[in-house]
């Protein structure tokens, strides 16, 4: 495989192609005119109701502007009229594929304001469930990316194997998609008997799934042709657009909040590594996510073996009132940096919650990265940036 062109060289090349095309249009008397193509709001590639208004010259994209808000639910406003326990119900539904991971930073922010810390057993189980929701979320991406570039089968494999992880989550929390299991000061309940052994088995299966995806999709030359050098985002651009998660690491930036700003969960107790890829293209994003899913299964395996015994709830008053103050906690969610800026005035509920969702920032790079690409590349890039619509629109 030839080394991919550097990001800036590729940008120049694309800009050159676009300029040539523009020149050709001007010079030829018969002006063809641009075509506006609305991808979405109802389109299979936007898995949700995102709309991308593209200006096309033939099949080449002149400009692409994401238009969203079709699913804006106003969670920031809704949180202001709810109590802290009630908020977690809403927050669950932001990134609906990794919902347990959504609850954690909010709860941690509230705990910071209250000066409460959950007991170690709760922190470990939180971390396990966090990583399980990462696997459930990202494994769907691993298959879905196949559908975006035209392969039918991987997504069925993803649904098949993700189901096992969801079952594990459901066995503990009672909810497949919306666990609502995290509480200020700990967890709602402890894990049922036999769950640890089952989860070990599921993790082995998920590693098998990763191998399968590597053979079926990532190693496939057609897939590589479609994804390499497509949608290259250099590291500095990624930082300036606030990209996070695997999208940032695929651009060669070694940044993982689990390691760099661990808010007290058990990640520092186990042995794992952060994967980065220097290319910054769609393939790199797929590659990084695949490695991270593998890494997550290893994290879960190690954590399962070392759960400390003890209570799962710290001493917290029955009616939770959070002292006045402000706190910002963010964690490395499946999609990237998910943070909650919680402002409390001392009431039952938060005064203001700013939800910093990863997909919102990740998708904001779309107009920059799509210029000069082709229509099929729009889909590849959108797929590889991996967004959840609820996470963009909140």
């Amino acid at each position: 495989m030839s080394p991919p062109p550097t990001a800036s060289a590729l940008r120049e090349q694309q800009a050159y192609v676009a300029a040539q095309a523009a020149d050709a249009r001007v010079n030829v008397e018969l002006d063809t005119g641009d075509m506006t193509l609305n991808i979405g709001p109802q389109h299979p590639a936007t898995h949700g109701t995102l709309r991308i208004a593209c200006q096309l010259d033939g099949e080449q994209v002149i400009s692409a502007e994401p238009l969203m808000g079709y699913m804006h639910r106003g969670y920031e406003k809704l949180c202001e009229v709810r109590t802290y326990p009630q908020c977690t119900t809403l927050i669950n539904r932001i990134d609906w594929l990794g919902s347990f991971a959504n609850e954690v930073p909010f709860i941690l922010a509230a705990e910071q304001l209250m000066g409460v810390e959950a007991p170690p057993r709760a922190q470990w189980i939180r971390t396990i469930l966090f990583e399980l929701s990462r696997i459930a979320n990202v494994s769907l991406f691993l298959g879905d990316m196949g559908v975006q570039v035209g392969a039918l089968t991987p997504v069925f494999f993803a649904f098949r194997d993700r189901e096992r992880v969801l079952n594990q989550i459901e066995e503990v929390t009672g909810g497949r998609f919306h666990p609502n299991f995290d509480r200020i000061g700990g967890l709602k309940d402890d894990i049922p008997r036999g769950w640890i052994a089952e989860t070990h088995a599921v993790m082995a299966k998920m590693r098998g799934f990763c191998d399968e995806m590597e053979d079926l999709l990532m190693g496939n030359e057609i897939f590589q042709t479609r994804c390499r050098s497509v949608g290259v985002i250099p590291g500095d651009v990624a930082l300036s657009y606030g990209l996070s998660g695997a999208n940032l690491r695929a651009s060669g930036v070694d940044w993982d909040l689990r390691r760099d700003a661990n808010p007290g969960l058990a990640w520092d107790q186990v042995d794992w590594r952060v994967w980065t890829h220097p290319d910054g293209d769609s393939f790199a994003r797929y590659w990084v996510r695949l490695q991270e899913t593998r890494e997550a299964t290893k994290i879960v395996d190690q954590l399962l073996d070392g759960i400390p015994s003890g209570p799962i709830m710290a001493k917290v008053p029955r009616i939770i009132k959070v002292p006045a103050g402000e706190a910002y906690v963010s964690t490395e969610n499946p999609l990237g940096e998910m943070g909650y800026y919680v402002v409390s005035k001392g009431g039952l509920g938060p005064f203001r919650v700013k939800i910093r969702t990863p997909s919102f920032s990740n998708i904001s790079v779309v107009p920059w990265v799509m210029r000069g690409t082709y229509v099929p590349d729009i889909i590849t890039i959108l797929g590889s940036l991996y967004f959840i619509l609820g996470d963009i629109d909140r």
Partner: protein
Amino acid sequence: MPQLPGLLKGLGVTARTAARTLFPKRGIRTLIPAPQQGSVTVQYPHEKEAPPDRARGVIALHEENCTACMLCSRSCPDWCIYIEGHKVKAPPRRAGGAVRSVNVVDRFDIDYALCMYCGICVEVCPFDALFWTPEYEYSEPHIADLLHDRIRLSEWMETVPEFLDYEPGSEQKVRKVPEFGTDDFAPARKLEAGS
């Protein structure tokens, strides 16, 4: 440019999956096709998957325990629980006692069209009157029919599974589900007011 190995590996993965689905059996019976066992799908109306015991399928009401204290209704984030109750006078527990005043539930409706299945009501209930059950087959053709009353909610009490044991190392106590139809378990039932 296409190189053979990656493309062939992919074909291998799909072929292997097809073979495993079609011929899941081992040993002599290998060649008997049995896709029903090999596939992961469940043919829903014919066979059913058992949800985990903790699954939050629907909320069941143990009416004898309910004192119409309104806690669940007030802590519901969706405002989907409607309770009405009134006080009555009840005879004393033993001879010589005073007449008690007791709360009676007249209405206990949960609007499942609004419910977000968060479980806050179950948690805040101080009298063990609300329980989760994994029951899930209660869809209705009309959205208004999803408002279920106390009779329907009480019927679901039968499907509440026992609470699960915990993994070693846990300090949680395993709770008990009150038995349906008996009233031996009702420590705080009929909250005595005014006596």
